[in-house]
């Protein structure tokens, strides 16, 4: 019976594999761990999971040697805007190797970024669909940003350059607006991002009354590690957040799902600061406008009132003159009417007098005597009947031109 040393056995396995599988293969897999070594090689662990995503079906080590990695890495990052990272689905061109000491592994020769991009896009679509179904996708955007978003809760890493940029931009604003910032530190790279940012948001939510707005900003590196902001958990946290959330996550190409649900997204931390400054600026301008209008309209009103008064005072004399003329006319009219009235009164009375005079004149006894009548008196009394007289009575007959004394026989 032939006995082999382990090295001999492994050597046979190696040569058998080399003989049986000499070609390169395109393999779909997910990266489950990743590390790089000092010399610049990249070591991956690839897995395949079942549909539930919880059970591993296959596993293999894969190495990208330095010379290959130096070419593949920039190509991949340029195409996807992301760093190769744990959790990514990748399409790799590999050859199968077996090493007597280290066992089975794959050597990576090429990496197809379109596959990863397709997978990220699919994942993104799924997250968006889920957020839409939750009815939260527009929730944060429908909040109202304070007129003065001066109290700012920042989610970032204290050491991130972007955080410094943001603070400098705010503090150095050319208008002299005041801002109050507080950092809620979070890891902005690596696989802890989701949990870390989420817990920072929770911390802010507990003191939300003290803030007007939340800003999530990142270092501003050209590419990120994994699309950690294409996360359902984070996007949902942001969408449901009670304050407007501004994302300055700084993706080169597509917006992350977090950008999609945030109140506003900007490219850089500096732009996030500018966004807030411009909001305060708008409010300040509105105040300026109101200030100006207050002064203007009070002045205008005063001018108008003055004109009104002047007009009145100009009108007054002529009004008075008119009034005077009118009153004079009334007076004159009355006077005339009194005159006419008096005249009429007098005329009426004098006519009456005339009539009376006439009838008086008609009754004058001299007029009657003139016509041939006579008047007989006896003892100074008018004799109206013959029976009034006796024999021997002396009567006086009054005629027009004299009297005759006679004795009754």
């Amino acid at each position: 019976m032939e006995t082999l040393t382990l090295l001999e056995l492994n050597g046979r396995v190696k040569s058998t594999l080399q003989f049986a599988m000499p070609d390169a293969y395109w393999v779909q897999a997910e990266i489950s761990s990743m590390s790089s070594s000092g010399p610049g090689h990249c070591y991956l662990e690839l897995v395949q999971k079942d549909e539930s995503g919880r059970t591993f079906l296959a596993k293999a080590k894969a190495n990208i040697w330095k010379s290959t990695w130096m070419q593949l890495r920039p190509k991949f990052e340029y195409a996807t805007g992301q760093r190769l990272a744990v959790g990514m689905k990748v399409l790799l061109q590999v050859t199968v190797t077996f090493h007597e000491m280290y066992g089975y592994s794959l050597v990576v020769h090429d990496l197809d970024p379109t596959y990863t991009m397709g997978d990220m896009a699919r994942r993104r679509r799924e997250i968006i669909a889920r957020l839409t179904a939750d009815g939260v996708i527009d929730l944060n955007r429908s909040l109202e940003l304070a007129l003065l978003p001066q109290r700012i809760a920042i989610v970032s890493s204290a050491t991130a350059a972007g955080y410094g940029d943001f603070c400098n931009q705010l503090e150095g604003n050319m208008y002299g607006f005041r801002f109050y910032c507080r950092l809620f530190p979070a890891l902005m790279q690596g696989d802890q991002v989701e949990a870390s940012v989420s817990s920072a948001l929770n911390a802010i939510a507990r003191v939300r009354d003290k803030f007007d707005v939340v800003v999530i900003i990142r270092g501003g590196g050209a590419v990120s590690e994994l699309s950690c902001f294409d996360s359902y958990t984070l996007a949902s946290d942001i969408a449901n957040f009670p304050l407007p959330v501004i994302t300055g996550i700084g993706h080169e190409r597509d917006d992350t799902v977090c950008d999609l649900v945030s109140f506003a997204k900007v490219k850089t931390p500096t732009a996030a600061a500018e966004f807030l400054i411009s909001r305060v600026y708008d409010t300040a301008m509105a105040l300026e406008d109101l200030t100006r209008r207050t002064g203007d309209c009070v002045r205008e009103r005063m001018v108008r009132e003055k004109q009104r008064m002047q007009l009145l005072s100009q009108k007054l004399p002529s009004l008075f003159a008119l009034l005077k003329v009118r009153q004079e006319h009334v007076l004159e009219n009355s006077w005339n009417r009194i005159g006419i009235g008096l005249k009429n009164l007098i005329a009426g009375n004098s006519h009456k007098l005339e009539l009376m005079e006439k009838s008086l004149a008609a009754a004058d006894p001299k007029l009657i005597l003139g016509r041939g009548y006579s008047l007989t008196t006896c003892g100074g009394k008018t004799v109206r009947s013959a029976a009034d007289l006796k024999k021997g009575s002396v009567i006086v007959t009054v005629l027009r031109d004299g009297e005759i004394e006679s004795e009754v026989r």
Partner: protein
Amino acid sequence: MKYEEAMKRLEEIVAQIEGGKLDIDMISDRLKEAQTLIKFCKDKLYETDEEVRRILEAED
């Protein structure tokens, strides 16, 4: 008072005066009120509110 409320009141006053509906007797009162509001708003914009700063820093 909140900044938002102050701005709203200010807008009201301006509208009143601009609308010419305001009694002349009331104008100086309203003008004084408007100036107080403007001062309040400007302070918010440009002056450091020590209280806000203290509250935010107290938590650190």
